[in-house]
């Protein structure tokens, strides 16, 4: 079976004036369908650039970028945008919930972008908010919620359209370890869900035990890819953490 994500020889540089800074120097990576895949590494190693490329918000300079059977480098900008709307859910470090919308309206956005009606989208959003334990906060605005609750709203927004790929950027960095753990549990597919691949960029070793595999990046390359057990051993983390 072909992997959900196949990256090969991926390179990306940024230019600032005459200075060209290579950020990704040849990434090879395969992520299978349904995997919870973590990308870890020090700041500036290229993690954010890598997830930006694999969800199509940034284009690579060279290499193969196959995501959910789509060659993102060959798609037009409009098709990539459409691809994201249909297939990708996002959980951002800073939540990025629109403060003037209610939680329900925020969660409904991906469905609205898919062309669903406001009513249908809100119904689905309300169900999803119930599922993440925020049934009583449906009509409140995000700024009335705690950080953990806001991140749960963001997760509901990422899941509501049942995307095949979820991209999370430091989803627990602003949360305590218990809330962070709850947030990660929400991302793991339940039996009734469609299979989904979850890519998590994180610095937070407290959540490493949620990963199926972990890719460790350093200086623009994937230094090694570890299974959960190998990662826990390598980083000296207890599975119960």
């Amino acid at each position, binding site marked *: 079976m072909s992997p959900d994500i196949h990256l090969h020889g991926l390179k990306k540089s940024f230019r600032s004036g005459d200075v060209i800074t290579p950020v990704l120097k040849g990434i090879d990576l395969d992520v299978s369908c349904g995997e919870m895949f973590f990308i870890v590494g020090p700041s500036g190693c290229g993690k*954010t650039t890598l*997830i*930006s490329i694999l*969800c199509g*918000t*940034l284009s690579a300079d060279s290499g193969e970028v196959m995501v959910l059977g789509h060659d993102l480098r060959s798609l037009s900008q*409009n098709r990539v*945008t*459409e*691809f*994201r*709307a*249909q297939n*990708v859910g*996002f959980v*951002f*470090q*800073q939540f*990025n919930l*629109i*403060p*003037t*919308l209610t939680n329900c*309206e925020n969660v409904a*956005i*991906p469905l*609205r*972008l*898919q062309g669903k009606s*406001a009513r249908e989208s809100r119904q689905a959003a309300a169900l999803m908010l119930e599922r993440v334990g925020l049934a009583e906060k449906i009509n409140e605005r995000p700024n009335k919620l705690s950080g953990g609750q806001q991140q749960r709203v963001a997760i509901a927004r990422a899941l509501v359209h049942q995307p095949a790929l979820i991209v999370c*950027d*430091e989803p627990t960095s602003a949360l305590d370890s218990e809330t962070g753990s709850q947030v990660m549990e929400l991302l793991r597919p339940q039996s009734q869900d469609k299979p989904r691949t979850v890519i998590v960029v994180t610095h937070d070793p407290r959540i490493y035990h949620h990963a199926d595999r972990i890719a460790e990046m350093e200086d623009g390359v994937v230094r090694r890819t570890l299974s959960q057990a190998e990662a826990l051993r390598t980083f000296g983390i207890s599975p119960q953490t």
Partner: protein
Amino acid sequence: MTDVAVQMLYGDRSKYMLLISGVCFSTVLMAQGLAMFFGILSFSYATLENARAPIWVVDPKVEQIADNQPLKDTDVDRVRSVAGVAWAVPFYTGQTQARVLGSGQTKPITLVGLDSATLAGAPTRVVKGSVLDLRQSQSVVIDEEVAARLGPDHEHPLDVGDVFEMNDQRAEVIAIVKTKQGQGGAAYVFTTFDRARHYGFSQRKMTTHVLAGPQKGLTDESVANSIMAETGLRAYTEANFKKASSDWMIYNSPIPFVVGLIVGIGFMVGVIVAGQTFYNFVLENTRYLGALKAMGASNFRLARMTVLQASLVGATGYCIGMGLLSLFFRSLPEGKAPLLLRWEVAVLVFAAVFLIIVIASMMGIRRVSSIDAAIVFRS
């Protein structure tokens, strides 16, 4: 996504109020400038609205109603003899001084002499008394402005039965009427043509205009053309004379420049305040617009949302601005201020606000298009 765009706009009340107040202020500035323009223009043809007649015959050199070139007395008969003319009467208008009885103080007035047989051109908005009583000796009809100016004090304007003097001749008020204000705050005294000879400054030829009407079935335009062709005089229809008077004012006074300046400043205020505030609104929402872009909102969709938001701001600001101005104008005494809120004002200001919104939208769209969706991954 229109509901999302609307919510993003309405959700932050203070920003929304700031946005619409910019457009509102600009609307008020531009609309009052244009209303003043039309108001001053309407003053230029006030006599035409106070003394109504289908056709006005004047000296060939006359370009506007306030230009009083005397005609020969025989010109009235020449006009009457033109085929298609149903009636023609002499008409006089000129400036003179009225003396307030008891004080010896004089006030400038516009004297109008009407044909005594027909009283053609007599004012129609009578407040008190009867215009038909003009046939009595020494009688005059005055407008409310004259009544106020010649009264003993502001609380006691002249009334029917009161007396004042013009050119040392006694004049008794037999009716008070409403008139449209003319240039320089002109106030009107109506009397018969013959009596105007005594009240006005003495001159050999008193007829300044000949008022005429077409026979049934003929248009004012065609009869005016016939009069011009047969008499060599200039004949205007009422509408054409109004236009000629307005045009004269436009080309021979600094009013268009002054008004243009006011409207221009209003427009610039609109562009700068509304445009800049709207741009800031987009700028402050960059992160959220970036998130929408990352989640699959195309540039086109975000541009549509931006245009919708700008249009809502423009429409609301415009309606509030025009509404406030309209209420303010209504609160002013009728006909006193040179302000005329005509439909052309509403259309022109709407067009200007539309342009402001287009500029604001373009600034917003430019910003939205340049947002990098990957911004959402940067802390």
